[in-house]
């Protein structure tokens, strides 16, 4: 691994002299188009969002505008609908992430063993993650959850129960769809973790007479921990941003029962045209995401250190 770091250092090492300005730009040159492009399309819009969040701005009132200080933040944080959206986001994310993580771990352990048709099962398993989320949401809303014709009700009908899934358990319905979609993601990351275990160590444990449980507890789990963390953090970051399923299945309802932060901001911006408040809510979301993201970056960083 360290050999791969040598080209740069080898070329730089014999000449500790300062690179000339031209040489430096020559080296940096290939990076710039991509870097500038990403800055232009992500950072500049975000700066605008921060700017809007301090403006009294509504797209329907062209005369609106002007600095409004922290008024938007006050309005957003004082808005019971915003707080409701925060609670929904936390419940939704925690529910979907934990459910898919647990299922993903179980499946990864199952698929780590050799059995007939393992490749086929793996291929079947990853399919829910590949299905266009909008199509998946519609599929669940109609074929799975429908109170009369839905397959879920058909499955539980021998028990004499019929459930109006989306109306009676809106949050759970969304969580189940998300868990279905994200379990393959968790499984893939954890399976990669399991398969990166050095076989000698497992073999040594077996020779020393460690049972499967003992081996899992003292060897596999510590090795898997960083992969679990990465799956948890990446899953959280992606699932916090859930929009498609809510837009397609519940439209944030019934009432406000499934309005999460992305959907709340969408409503503020594109239905109420309250640009200022939507922007303030967006900045709050970014601040919250940043906390999770920092942990995620640390984990990626540690996996990354190992590599180089």
């Amino acid at each position, binding site marked *: 691994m360290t050999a791969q770091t040598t080209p740069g250092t080898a070329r730089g090492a014999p000449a500790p002299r300062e690179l000339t300005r031209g040489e430096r730009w020559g080296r940096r040159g290939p990076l710039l188009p991509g870097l500038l492009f990403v800055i232009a399309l992500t950072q500049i819009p975000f700066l605008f*969002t921060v700017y809007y969040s301090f403006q009294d701005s509504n797209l329907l009132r062209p005369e609106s505008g002007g600095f409004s200080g922290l008024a938007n933040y006050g309005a957003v944080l004082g808005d019971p609908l915003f707080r409701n959206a925060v609670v929904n986001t936390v419940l939704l994310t925690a529910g979907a992430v934990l459910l898919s993580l647990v299922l993903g771990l179980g499946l990864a352990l199952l698929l780590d063993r050799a059995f007939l048709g393992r490749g086929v099962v793996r291929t079947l398993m990853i399919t829910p993650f590949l299905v266009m989320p909008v199509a998946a949401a519609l599929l669940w809303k109609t074929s799975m959850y429908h109170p009369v014709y839905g397959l879920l009700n058909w499955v539980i009908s021998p028990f004499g129960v019929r459930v109006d899934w989306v109306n009676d358990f809106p949050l759970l319905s969304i969580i189940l769809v998300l868990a279905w979609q994200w379990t393959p993601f968790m499984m893939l990351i954890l399976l990669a973790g399991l398969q990166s275990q050095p076989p000698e160590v497992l073999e040594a444990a077996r020779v020393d007479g460690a049972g499967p449980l003992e081996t899992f507890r003292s060897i596999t789990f510590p090795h898997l921990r960083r992969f679990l963390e990465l799956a948890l953090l990446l899953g959280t970051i992606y699932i916090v941003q859930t929009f498609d399923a809510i837009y397609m299945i519940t439209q944030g309802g019934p009432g406000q029962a499934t309005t999460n932060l992305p959907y709340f901001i969408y409503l503020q911006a594109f239905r109420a045209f309250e640009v200022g408040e939507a922007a303030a809510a967006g900045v709050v979301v970014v601040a919250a995401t940043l906390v999770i993201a920092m942990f995620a970056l640390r984990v990626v960083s540690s996996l990354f250190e190992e590599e180089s």
Partner: protein
Amino acid sequence: MTDVGARRPDHGQEPVRPRAPRPRRRRRIGPGFGLGLLAWVVGVLFFFPVLWMFLTGFKQESQASTDPPTFWFEPTLDQYAAVLGRDFVPYLLNSLQASVLSTALAIVLAVPAAYALSLVRIPKWRDSLFFFLSTKLLPPVAMILPLYVIARNLGALDDVRTLTLVYTAMNMPIAVWMIRSFLVELPEEVLEAARMDGAGRIREMRSVILPMIAPGLAATALICFIFAWNEFFFAVNLTASQAATVPVFLVGFISGEGLFWARLSAASTMAALPVIIAGWAAQRWLVRGLSLGAIK
């Protein structure tokens, strides 16, 4: 086989020798077979909704919503004909254009960037690398308003080119990280040999590096294509009638209220199929893409 050999000493201590083989064999097959079967059952369960969607697309509407569900039916292509007759094709072309062009653009921008961040060690390369990653963690809701306003002021709303640029930016972190992870795996001797031959940067890139990472580039492109094709949030907010993509087409079925399940399933199948095939083809590299190159 080695398993049996390893256990034999244990069994040697058992009191009733002749009986030992039978339970032993059952134990050897038992848990392994059971767990394999369990994996199959769970795998099929997870896949079943997708299979159901596929099947329902070949039903008549009267067979699509029944209680109990209809499992056996005469397949028909009526629903596919109906969807294609309902102006589905322009949406398909918009999706294709936005996904393919944004993928190509992301690769073109990411290859030199990944090169600068791996084989040439530029100052602060680590910061730049993590900067790309951090943009992936920025929620789209935090950018959508300004993008909408800027696009509106430029007259670029409802334009596939706008979506293409947004998707390119969205996929850049994945592309840079993935391609970089392929570049650092290149054997040192090969690069060294190219330099000994006096190959310049560009020739080294074109005739040595690119051919070697071609499979990696293909994998990266497939992953970028998957994300762009499935993207909904930017598509629904930045397009209206001209540039709307396939996910936006499916929105029309929300209010269908269970009347057009078969047609909906046919449309969903057509919408999902390209990515399912791309994903199956790229499944070896899926983890690397999803973890932004952090996991091999």
